[in-house]
């Protein structure tokens, strides 16, 4: 039996599309981010390993600790994968996106107004039910999401079996089982992040279904008005929910026209057509859509939003 190792130039066609080959091209960029093609946000409950995933992708050593509330400010870093440069934003861990505390507000506003190209929701596989509450809320805001089913090593230790295909079907977004501390599952996670961000995979996220009829009717009514006023908005229903909840930040965004802007960008933002161009001219280093980025997401590394 002979084993022949091909030089890189002779790599067969099939290899180029394999996630393992792409992993070999993963370049951890740390915080040296001058421009980027896509923005990925990392959301999740406290203490599920967001910072560990963040470090694994960026090569940074943002301090991780085994206690909830480790990350209180946004941390940013970058990596390059499959020819595209990604900026990745580690959001504070929250149990929900519905309350008024500062950390939840930072996470909520970034996912909505920061318009990440993909939001990775890191969940604790051993506490799936409670973690899904947040996943469902994120899926109300954005339909470009990947669920990272982390801490699979612990789930195995507890002898839990999780049917991730079933979960992916029910949620309508890709689900990737990982054990980030051991580096397990990261190649597939990267591939899914890339596919969702570039539009190769189109998600059909599950929206909350069990509301009582009165609530459902009210939300539908308001959503219809918002859709009429801002036809391009991908998350009119979430905005309706927030307005019904009396969210002042959202009301202000509505009055100042910030929401209208969100709608226009989304409307002109072809989902499928980013894919080819992303891989072809990535090496030119041209930022693809910097003009569309809100000014506040331009900051670099450990940007801190202090209290007003």
């Amino acid at each position, binding site marked *: 039996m002979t084993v022949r190792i091909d030089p890189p130039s002779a790599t067969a066609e099939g290899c180029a599309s394999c996630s393992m080959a792409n992993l070999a091209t993963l370049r951890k960029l740390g915080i040296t981010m001058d421009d980027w093609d896509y923005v990925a946000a990392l959301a999740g409950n406290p203490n599920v390993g967001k910072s560990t995933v963040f470090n694994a992708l960026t090569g940074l050593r943002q301090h991780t600790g085994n206690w909830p509330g480790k990350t209180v400010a946004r941390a940013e870093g970058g990596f390059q994968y499959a020819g595209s440069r990604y900026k990745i934003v580690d959001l504070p861990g929250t149990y929900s996106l519905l309350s008024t505390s500062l950390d939840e507000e930072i996470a909520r506003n970034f996912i909505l107004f920061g318009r990440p190209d993909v939001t990775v929701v890191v969940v604790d596989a051993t506490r799936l039910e409670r973690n899904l509450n947040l996943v469902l809320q994120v899926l109300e805001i954005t339909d470009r999401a990947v669920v990272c089913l982390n801490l699979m090593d612990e789930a195995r230790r507890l002898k839990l079996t999780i049917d991730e295909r079933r979960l992916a079907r029910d949620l309508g977004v890709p689900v990737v089982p990982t054990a980030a501390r051991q580096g397990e599952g990261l190649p597939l996670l990267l591939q899914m992040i890339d596919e969702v961000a570039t539009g190769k995979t189109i998600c059909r996220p599950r929206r909350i279904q069990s*509301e009582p009829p009165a609530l459902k009717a009210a939300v539908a009514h308001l959503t219809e008005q918002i859709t009429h006023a801002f036809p391009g908005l991908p998350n009119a229903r979430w905005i309706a929910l927030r307005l019904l909840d009396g969210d002042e930040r959202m009301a202000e965004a509505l009055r100042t026209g910030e929401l209208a802007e969100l709608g226009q960008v989304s409307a002109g933002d072809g989902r499928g057509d980013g894919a080819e161009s992303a891989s072809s001219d990535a090496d030119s280093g041209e930022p693809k859509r910097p003009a569309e980025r809100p000014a506040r997401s331009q900051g670099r590394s450990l940007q801190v939003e202090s209290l007003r």
Partner: protein
Amino acid sequence: MSATTTFTPEQILKTAEALRWQVGGAFHESLMEALYTDAAQIADRAVARPDKPPRFDLDRTLDRLVTSRTWGFPLMLLLLAVVFWITITGANVPSGLLAQLLIDTILPFLKAGAAAIGLPWWLSGFLLDGVYLATAWVVSVMLPPMAIFFPLFTLLEDFGYLPRVAFNLDNLFRRAGAHGKQALTMSMGFGCNAAGVVATRIIDSPRERLIAIITNNFSLCNGRWPTQILIASIFLGALAPAYLAGLISALGVLIIALLGVFLAFAVSWGLSHTVLRGEVSTFHLELPPYRPPRIWQTIYTSVIDRTLIVLWRAVVFAAPAGAIIWLSANLTIAGASIAEHLINFLNPFGLLIGLNGVILVAYIVAIPANEIVIPTVLMLTVLATGMTGVGAGAGVMFELDSAGDVLAVLRGGGWTLLTAVNLMLFSLIHNPCSTTIYTIYRETGSKRWTAVAALLPLAMGFIVTFFVAQFWRLIASL
């Protein structure tokens, strides 16, 4: 409403207002309920549990033990004491070796080099006896304890012990009128107070957050651990026979750390019953699963992230401080050096509170970084007492191969056990470093609260050391 009209923002807001009244006050609750129902459904379909729960659950057993009413606190104290003990006994030998290398071997070499290329005495004094010696001192005194203490502490953190500490302390914080999460920000403060102040963002209520910010300074920080450990080793350890010395010193440091925790409670209680009155808010704290710490990675990151950063900070501040001290010791006004004027000016007040002028000057020099208090104290002591035979003149640091030499120098400077105890107390209770003060200002956005956070502990430090000194002298005179 017809579907052909477009809606203005004001109209939409009005509709939202009207609908909110229709749905009623239960909007938030029914939405949450819907969320939970959906989540439960999906999770139920995806997760298969083992038929029988395992008979022995290690996590639960450990949790019963470390959060138990009877064993929780003793275990916590025991763990801390063991960490200090390992740090103190483990740091002695490498400290001595480093001092030997940096001060006994390299310094004469550098001096010979300086003489060979004909550097003027003032330049070589300034650079070598000032800047280099101060830096070498900081490295040899601080590096070994930090390289042992930080990895140990990080391992505990990685294991998942901190939230259990928070759980144990929650009841006490509630009684003090503060937020239970303050236990977590306090633990962060044991590393760095500036980081602890930023961590208070996890507290929602502004009232409780302010309390947490103001009291964070009572957590001994990186910059102050070495002071505590060194002074405890040389003064408290000397009280006991050699085989008990490490243990006694560790207990001394533990008592100071606990006093800090007690003061955090006391000041929280005081604030929440006077200027920051209000209700205690509820919160839920998740006890994360215990995770086997990744030992090598933890050691690597804690050495890189904490030890070297703290050391770098110390060096960055120690080098110019060394230069300033050398200058102030060698520039004279009216027959005495500037440093002597300052020390003599502050000495009466220092002695009144059981310290001395040297220590107070050192604390003024050390406002940017607590790390340099001990090196500054030693340099100034030699200067003030006009000691000869150590080093080569005023403001020059000297060869200290062992803790015993430090003891001899400090005794020569008029130090007693009272001075040592009061220095440990004052190191715990004084104004935060300038970085922390700036962070407090950035987080609170208020000059008034920043001033309170800076001056309250300083005033308390003066009061505590004053009373300790008076009682000490009263008892000693009996």
